[in-house]
Every structure is written in structure tokens, then in C-alpha cells.
């Protein structure tokens, strides 16, 4: 399996709103912690080491390619 880089989330606007709403009333520190936990929970769900490596590399490359 390779990392799916095509749209895959149904009702994308509602999903995004759910993500934002979940951070409501959290401090920045708590919100960052929540995202860290979410990443770990999803990584475990995926499980496939090759897919995870691809996703980690993509997140890093995309961050480095983005100007400050």
C-alpha cells in the first residue's frame, strides 16, 4: 500500500469543522497536545510502516517548502 494523496474524506467541510470545534476552549498548549495525540492515534490505526514513513516525509517536506 502507498499513501493515499487523493481526497478521501467524505463531507470534508463538516470534518474540518469538527476538528476545529474539538480545539475550542483549549489553550494553545492543550490544542498542540491534542493534535499530537490525534497524530499518534491515527498513526497506530494506519499501522503500515511504509505508509507512515511516506506520510512523515511528506509532512516534513511540505513544512520545509513553506516559507515562514
Amino acid at each position, binding site marked *: 500500500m502507498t499513501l493515499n494523496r487523493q481526497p478521501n474524506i467524505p463531507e470534508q467541510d463538516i470534518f474540518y469543522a469538527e476538528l476545529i470545534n474539538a480545539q475550542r476552549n483549549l489553550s494553545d498548549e492543550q490544542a*498542540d*497536545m491534542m493534535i*499530537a*495525540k490525534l497524530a*499518534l*492515534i491515527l498513526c*497506530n490505526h494506519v499501522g503500515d510502516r511504509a505508509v507512515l514513513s511516506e506520510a512523515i516525509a511528506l509532512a516534513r517536506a511540505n513544512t520545509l517548502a513553506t516559507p515562514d
Partner: protein
Amino acid sequence: MSKTYTYPSFDYQPSAEQQSGSVRRHPVVIIGAGPVGLTQALDLASRGVPSLVLDDDNTVSVGSRAVCYAKRPLEIWDRLGLGEEFAAQGVQWQLGKVFLRDDLAYSFDLLPEQQHKMPAMINYQQYHLEERLVKACEASELVELRWKHKVLSLQQRDDHVNLNVETPDGIYRIEAQWVVACDGANSTVRGMVGADFSGQFFQDRFLIADVIMKADFPTERWFWFDPPFHRNQSVLLHKQADNIWRIDFQLGWNADPVEEKKPEKVIPRIQAMLGPDVEFELEWVSVYQFACRRINNFRHQRVIFAGDAAHQVSPFGARGANTGVQDCDNLSWKLAAVLAGQAPEALIDSYHEERAYAADDNIGHSTRATDFITPKSRSSLRLRNAVLELARSEPFARPLVNSGRLSTPTPYLQSSLNTPDRDPFAGRMLPGTNCADAPIRRDGQDGWLLEQLGHGFTLLSFGPAAPVSVGGITAEVIEVGRDIEDAQGLVAQRYDGQPGTVYLIRPDQHVAARWRQFDATEAQAALRRALKLQ
């Protein structure tokens, strides 16, 4: 000094060589009488090789230092006749608890596979261990210990090494066919041969203390992340013999090592941890910084490095002395074969090949544990704490908690001494793997498989086989069902032994080759390969 232990003092004795001024050439000179040097001497002796051990001091390790000894080193010491004693005297444990702040985050059980002679892990102070090893060396006709002998310099020659040694009586010269440097992390021999010793230093300091107390804490390994009594740092508590408890405090990089060692600083820290009512006495304190490094080559001509002199790891997971003892296990039979002219010097190079591979594996484990315990940035601290917070309720996060993975042997799966499998096998006993133990019966007596292996090369067979020889080395047959009884069927199970299966096992109890049917030509070729004789 210590209230529970009297440090022995070993007498300096002038050597006949120094007194007479005649230079003697020894087959093997070992530099450093720590756990690794002493084990090296005993292991060589078990293979008939005499050795001379030089140490610049005249006592054993001060403080508990290396505390945890894992199953594989215990098996090696058992081959040398000391395993049962260490297992009986050390503290056995198998439950570990990990706390985050005030709460238990996770607990684990080592869950060792049952029916092995040696336990998964014991805690035993290094000084006890060394004192016993010294006694065993003194009792051996093949080991000579010389205390207060400091090696000042050495010169490599084609077929030997000259050592210039200083004693209370002055300086004299010793010659050695081979030198094994076991002189620890701060090895001076490394500098004498110009060896590179590089790696990663961690910007952190740890306080380790031995404390005497009669406490009700269970015999478990307790590890705290960010505990209320020592905020933002980690703490480890471990029980040892004689009511001694070992406590490690992470101090951070800015701590002053001299200041932190003072009792007025240490005692309040420990009191805060144990609670106001617990009475204890401080026995020994040390502050250290650690590094993960290894020597570029374990062999520099005729000087061979073992233990911390060859590789240094952070202490999480008991990897220092444990891997050092496995270095000895690997080197002894090779040195014995080369000294007897039964194998070429290339066999010594396979010591570097196999043990540098194991050292790199250990350094990897150790570095990853260190990065988890002492995160290097705010974001890695956040990820670490996310794992710990999730671990309380989420089983998936628990395996990610890394407070030190416990030392297990690194199989030499890629070793050039192995003969790759041609036949299909199930299970874990791949070529290059250390042999699993199992209960057996021999001559009507209960025993263990590992007691039968390790005296030379062995053909462990589950059907007819015949001894094979190469040069002066013979692999003798131990046939399951004829020579030993597979009392509980576990030998067949652990080795996937079917009728006809045969394993070629090295003197260090590692699998060299295996087949589904014995063939003398193939067995001989595998033996040649394991001796670097092709």
C-alpha cells in the same frame, strides 16, 4: 565508606619477570580487571588458553555501577560455572512500572519464556560480581592476576605486542601475542593505538545513589517521568541485594556535578521521593554524563578491544556490562583457535564484524531510549507526553513508552561465519542466533540443553549424524533421543527439530548452520566456513 560491603584489597606482588629482568611472551594479556576483563580471562581458561590480567588498581568497582544482568550474560557465566550462584544471590524481578507525574501510566511484565535455566534479569551490585570473578580467576591455573600494574605504552610488532608496564617496583616489559583491552570507557589503550572513538554525547547529567533501607517497595523496576518530587525530570528506582536500593535522578544539563553529589543536596532529594517517614542511609553517590560511542575497529592489529573500551552506551536498558560479557563469549573461542593454529587471523576479524554489529544495535536501542526519556526540544517533549498520557487508557500507546528496552542478544544474522539456510525452518533459531535453552535429561538426571553446548563445536541432531573434523577441530554429535532426552519436547519445539534435523553450533552457543538431513560434506564445509578456513 560502605556500611554493607567491605571492599577487598588485592595484594600487589612483584612478578618473577620483573625481578629477574627476563622478558616473557604471553599468549594473551588482558588489560583491565573489571567484569569484562575477568570474564575474558575465565572464558579463555575454559578453552585452555592461559592469560595474564593487568590492572592499575587493586580492588573492585566502587558503588553498584552496572546493576542489571540479563539472561544471556548469566548463561555465559553459567558456562564458566558461576551462573547458578549469581542467579541465587542477585535480586530477580520481572515487573516494571512507569509513572507519569502522580499516576501510574503503564506497567509491564518481562514475561520471560518459561523453562530456561537462567532468569530474565537479576540486579546485583558490580562489586559483588567482580569479587566473585576475581576468586574464580585466582582458583584457575590458567589465569594470572597482577594488581597495581599500569600499562604506560605499547608497540605493535608483526607477531606480538610489547607492553611497557609500571608497578611499585618500577617499569618493565611484557610481550603478548594478543592483547585484549578491557580498560573501560576511558580506555587509555585506545589512545595508544590511535583508535577513533566517536559518537553522540548527550547533554544531560544523572545522579545515581545507592541507599540502604528496609522498605516495603516491591521488587519491581519503577520509572517516573516528571514526578511531583522531581519535576520535569525522570527517576528510576531498583532493588539490589543486601537491602540496597539504587536510585537514578535525571538532573538536566545545567546541574553542577560537584554540588549535586554533596549529601546535603542528595538526602533531601531522596527523602522527598521516599516520603518523610522512610529511614534510609546513603551508601554511594555519583554524577555522570553519558554518551553512545564505539571504536572504529574492534581489532587494531594485535590489540583487540572489548566491553566499554570498545563501545559505550547510555545506561537505560542494561546494555553496558551485558554486551561486554557477550564480547568475551564471541572472542574467546576465536582466539583459542587462532592461537592453536587451527584458524587464520581472519577469524579474529569476524569478532569485529559480529560484535560491532551488536554494538551498533545496542547503541541504536540506547539512543532511542535516551531520546524518549530526555526529549531534546519542546515539540519532542510534547509528543513524549502525548504517548504517556495516552498510555494510561490506550493499549496501543503502551509499546511506544520507552524507559529503556531490556538487553537481549543481537543475533548475527548477516555474519560471514553463517551458512545460510537452504531448507525451510520455522521458529527463531536462524543461523547467527544464540541457542535457546530447554530442559533435558541426561543419564537419568535433569539438566539443561545449554549445559551440553559450548565446550567446542557441536552437531545437535534429531537423527543419525557423525562427528566432522577440520584441521584439529572436531564437531562432536549430541543426538536428541540417544545422548539426551528431550524431557518436555521443548528442544524439538524451540529448534523446529524434525527427524533428521541437525544443527552445527559454535563454541559460543550460536547457530552456525542447520539442515533437515545430515550430510558430512555439507557439515564439514559449514565448519570450515565458521572457522574462516575457505
